[in-house]
């Protein structure tokens, strides 16, 4: 064994240590801040969690560099359980996809941790908040680092739990605890599908390990199962659609999107971290991770594409009608998630992940910027009471402007590259339904231009509509520094398109079917500005400028002119009311019916108490035995047992 080999072993041990360090450091931070929060105080809580996430971020960077040098890892950490011939493990898969996600997650998380110092400064639940967001970081990292479906599901549910805890962070507010229950239950509907998909995988592939399943999948491509008598279904289509239902819950795709807007009840830092940049993209990540399976099912891809396109366009139009600044950003997130999903449906996994990355930055900026406005205005979220803020909050204004430009997809900002790529991919896609999806997405681009700049113009331009006697002040450094640090990649992350998408960055970590013609950054931009989507985005932005800068009287008149249609969009197409009535009300009605009609009237009323009455009638004859003394009953039982035993001992047939 040579020195080189020894050095190699040494290196492997070190890297494995780093892999463990990435998720466990935030977990340790969460435990310390959660259990010893009072002892270590506020500074202690943010100190220990920020340090732990910083460690995690640095380790992720080292790992990314290592992965780029060609060192990937796929191995088990420990065996979770065994049963029959099933073996379920906890393990890591470190490749280019997971390494990229680790860096994005830990970076955004770090920024949000720092920002929180400012945003939550006045809150009595300060330590608890830091504990939760570190716990979230741990969970999300476990999710992206998983090398098997069990751990994926573990992370999946754990981020859902933290999301639940954080939406309901201000637990005395009725709207917050309604929203967190709603979020959890809607996600559970998705998880229901997800679990069935996982169970199907185990039942048919005998393993939950990614590599094993992906290796066996091509051989199972033609396999069918019968769900309804006589109709064979392609096994992989059923599996992929089940898995995708999970993604629809977590990534808030139509029609399971209803929880995300309400999740804005949580403090703004978590809206940025969980409900924009990271957790909600878990569904996108999962489908990309499962690309070897989805590639084998044209049906599943069509479903994914259609759902993504519908989400993108329907939510973009809702965003135009909202006045709560956070809700505008929330609906914009839904729309952007729709783009990512559509990209997956078009088999452009790398484009979807690329948009996930750029979106993580620019959406975090928009949310944290909105949060900065909200604290400056003492928790005012209604844009009708903002206006002209750019003079008071110059740094916030500039960073939000960057975020809006990126969100609308205007060059050279990050969102332009990833969004344009998705549109190109869907345009070129052979997935059935791609043409339909393309036009929906193009319409969504126009709406995206409108709502992005509507937000900027309503909040930051025009005349102040708040009390100028107490002018708002720019937020402290702990708020503005993360904003600036996130604004930088919101400008520049798109320029990595050559490396990330076309440079074969993802290698074998996801299926690469997207081979666009790429001739460099400038050519890409030059081509982009000649296509329809660019002009639509610009048109949308111009329309917003006209409506909200030049003719601020018009929007209200338009709303009135389009009365019922506008009301439908503004009320989010009525899904909340429908679900509340159909599912929440329906389940309670059925439950009450079964309880009163089934348990009480039929089982107890007829069967049990009927027999009891019969017994009561008989025992009327032997009432003397009913002394009402418990110990007599007890002894009667013992004697009864003895009598029965005597009976069988003497009288039972013996052979």
């Amino acid at each position, binding site marked *: 064994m040579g020195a080189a080999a020894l050095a190699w072993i040494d290196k492997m041990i070190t890297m494995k240590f780093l892999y463990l360090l990435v998720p466990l450091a935030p977990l340790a931070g969460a435990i310390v801040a959660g259990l010893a929060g009072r002892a270590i105080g506020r500074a202690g809580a943010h100190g220990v969690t920020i340090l732990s996430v910083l460690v995690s971020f640095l380790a992720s960077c080292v790992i990314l560099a290592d992965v780029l040098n060609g060192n990937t890892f796929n191995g088990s950490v420990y065996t979770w359980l065994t049963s029959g011939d099933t073996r379920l493990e906890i393990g890591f898969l470190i490749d280019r996809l997971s390494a990229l996600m680790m860096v994005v997650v830990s970076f955004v998380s770090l920024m949000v941790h720092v920002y929180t110092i400012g945003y939550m400064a006045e809150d009595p639940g300060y330590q608890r908040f830091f504990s939760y967001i570190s716990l979230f970081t741990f969970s999300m990292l476990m999710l992206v680092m998983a090398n098997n479906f069990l751990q994926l599901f573990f992370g999946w*549910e754990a981020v859902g739990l933290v999301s639940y805890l954080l939406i309901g962070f201000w637990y005395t507010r009725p709207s917050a605890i309604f929203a967190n229950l709603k979020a959890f239950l809607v996600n559970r509907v998705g998880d229901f599908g997800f679990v069935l998909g996982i169970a199907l995988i185990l039942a048919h592939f005998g393993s939950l390990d990614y590599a094993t399943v992906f290796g066996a999948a091509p051989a199972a491509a033609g396999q069918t199962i019968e769900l309804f008598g006589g109709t064979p279904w392609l096994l992989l289509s059923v599996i992929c659609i089940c898995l995708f239902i999970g993604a629809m819950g977590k990534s808030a795709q139509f029609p399971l999107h209803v929880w995300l807007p309400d999740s804005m009840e949580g403090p703004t830092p978590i809206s940025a971290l969980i409900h924009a940049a990271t957790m909600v993209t878990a569904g996108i990540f999962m489908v990309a991770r499962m690309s070897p399976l989805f590639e084998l099912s044209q049906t599943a891809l069509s479903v994914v594409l259609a759902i993504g396109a519908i989400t993108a366009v329907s939510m973009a139009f809702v965003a135009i009608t909202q006045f709560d600044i956070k809700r505008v950003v929330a609906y914009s997130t839904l729309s952007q998630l729709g783009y990512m999903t559509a990209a997956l449906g078009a088999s452009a996994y790398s484009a979807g992940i690329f948009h996930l990355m750029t979106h993580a930055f620019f959406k975090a900026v928009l949310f944290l910027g909105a949060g900065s406005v909200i604290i400056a205005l003492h928790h005012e979220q209604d844009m009708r009471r903002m206006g002209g803020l750019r003079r008071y909050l110059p740094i916030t204004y500039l960073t939000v402007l960057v975020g809006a430009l990126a969100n609308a997809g205007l060059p050279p900002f990050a969102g332009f590259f990833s969004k344009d790529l998705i549109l190109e991919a869907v345009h070129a896609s052979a997935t059935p339904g791609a043409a339909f999806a393309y036009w929906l997405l193009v319409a969504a681009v126009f709406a995206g231009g409108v709502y992005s700049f509507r937000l900027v113009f309503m909040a930051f331009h025009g005349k102040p509509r708040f009390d100028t006697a107490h002018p708002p002040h720019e937020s402290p450094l702990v708020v503005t520094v993360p904003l600036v640090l996130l604004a930088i990649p919101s400008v520049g992350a798109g320029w990595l398109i050559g490396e990330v998408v076309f440079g074969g960055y993802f290698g074998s970590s996801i299926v690469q079917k997207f081979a666009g013609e790429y001739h460099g950054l400038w050519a890409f931009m030059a081509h982009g500005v000649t296509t329809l989507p660019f002009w639509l985005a610009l048109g949308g932005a111009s329309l917003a400028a006209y409506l909200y800068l030049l003719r601020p009287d018009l929007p209200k008149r338009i709303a009135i002119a389009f009365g019922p249609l506008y009301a439908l969009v503004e009320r989010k197409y009525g899904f909340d009311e429908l679900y509340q009535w159909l599912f929440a009300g329906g*389940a*309670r009605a059925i439950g009450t019916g079964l309880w009163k009609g*089934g348990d009480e009237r039929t089982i107890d009323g007829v069967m049990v108490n009927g*027999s009891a009455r019969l017994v009561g009638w008989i025992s009327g004859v032997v009432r003397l035995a009913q002394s009402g003394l418990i110990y007599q009953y*007890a002894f009667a039982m013992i004697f009864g047992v003895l009598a029965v035993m005597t009976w069988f001992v003497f009288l*039972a047939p013996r052979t």
Partner: protein
Amino acid sequence: MTHTVPLLSYAIWVPIVAALLVLAAGGDRNAPVQRWLALAGSITGFVVTIPLYLNFRLDVAGMQFVELAPWIQQFNIHYHLGVDGISLLFLMLNSFITILVVISGWSVIENRVGQYLASFLVLSGLLNGVFSALDAVLFYVFFEATLIPMFIIIGVWGGPNRVYAALKFFLYTLAGSLLMLIALLYLYGKSGGSFAILDWHQLPLPLEAQKWLFFGFLLAFAVKVPMWPVHTWLPDAHTEAPTGGSVVLAAILLKLGAYGLIRFSLPILPDASRDLAWFMIALSLVAVVYIGLVALVQNDMKKLIAYSSISHMGFVTLGFFVFNALGLEGALVQMISHGFVSAAMFLCVGVMYDRMHTRMISDYGGVVNTMPKFAALMMLFAMANSGLPATSGFVGEFMVILGAMKANFWIAFAAATTLIFGAAYTLWLYKRVIFGAVANEHVAGLKDLNGREFLVLGLLAAAVLWMGVYPLPFTEVMHASVNELLRHVALPKI
């Protein structure tokens, strides 16, 4: 395989002897002495089960730590004990829960303290007897005898409607066990005068006879599980029982029915079990879905958790009858986990009841404001009850769903609805009771957990997390016995 130290006898008799000592310590004047005696007895009772785990041989499918002595020789009845991978963990769970019950009643029970504690200790010994008996008569005696202390616990320390509840409990169980007795007698005759359960496992029986016996056993065991539609005694028994009674009822007594199915019905009547699997699966799924919906609309916290118990036990019977290792071991894991989680949920209600003297959800709201430590622990248990990964509640449900999918997609589909229903009724309960603004002056005056309550709930929290994060130590003791059982069930014995 015999063992030099009669550990199983210790597990049965140590708590019972401790109970006698507690009673001998006199009346309520000596309550403090009785409490410490009971605590020492329950801890000793648990400690003697630890060597069972440590010396348990993972490669042995059959009975271990066997004790065999003649009892009533002329009828061939033996004092015959032993544990395998299926029963081992239940002895430990039972002995562990007994400690918690003793501690949780420490300052709450003030009248007839000695009798209260002695009842639980006797019950604990008898339950260990049920889980280790290998002679049918011995099993029957222990099985029936457990009713007596439970009956007394509900009847003496129970709530206002305890007479109705106790009567219902009594009638249901009596109706069930009589048929089991007939089944046992039949098998005694058929086997040529043997009460050895393990001999019966090898006994050839025609299908028709197997089916009759199956229903005979089923009625006794289904009432105990309880399976739909013979479950309606449980919500009443739970609401009237004192906290400790609810804890043991949910954590251990409900396991007797499921244990009976796996010790008697499956191995003695494999052909009938296979033939009637569809029926058992159907009843189990009704329990999961129907009871899940009923749980959603309960106004009484204890009733809600009782219904949730029935729904969770549906997973146990479902896992038994899909006939694969994941399903069976998943069912056993679910039984252990349910022991922790349901005990914890009832203790949580007990903690609130001791302060507020009401179980009605509408009397609460905003408890988190005054009891943050309690709220945090109850959140963990609520999540475990909803089957969240990294808690014990996930492991069994997940395994059973995986096992069910191997049998049929739609069975797994119906079972997986628990992800939605379980979360809905548990978290809606949590929302209404714990979250929100302080609802009234009673809630405003609540004191957070005291040291004893914190200890009890903390121990359960540790168990719930351990089993969720690293369930391997729980499942690996089961493998040999479960695989042997599955092999045995697959062979026709007509």
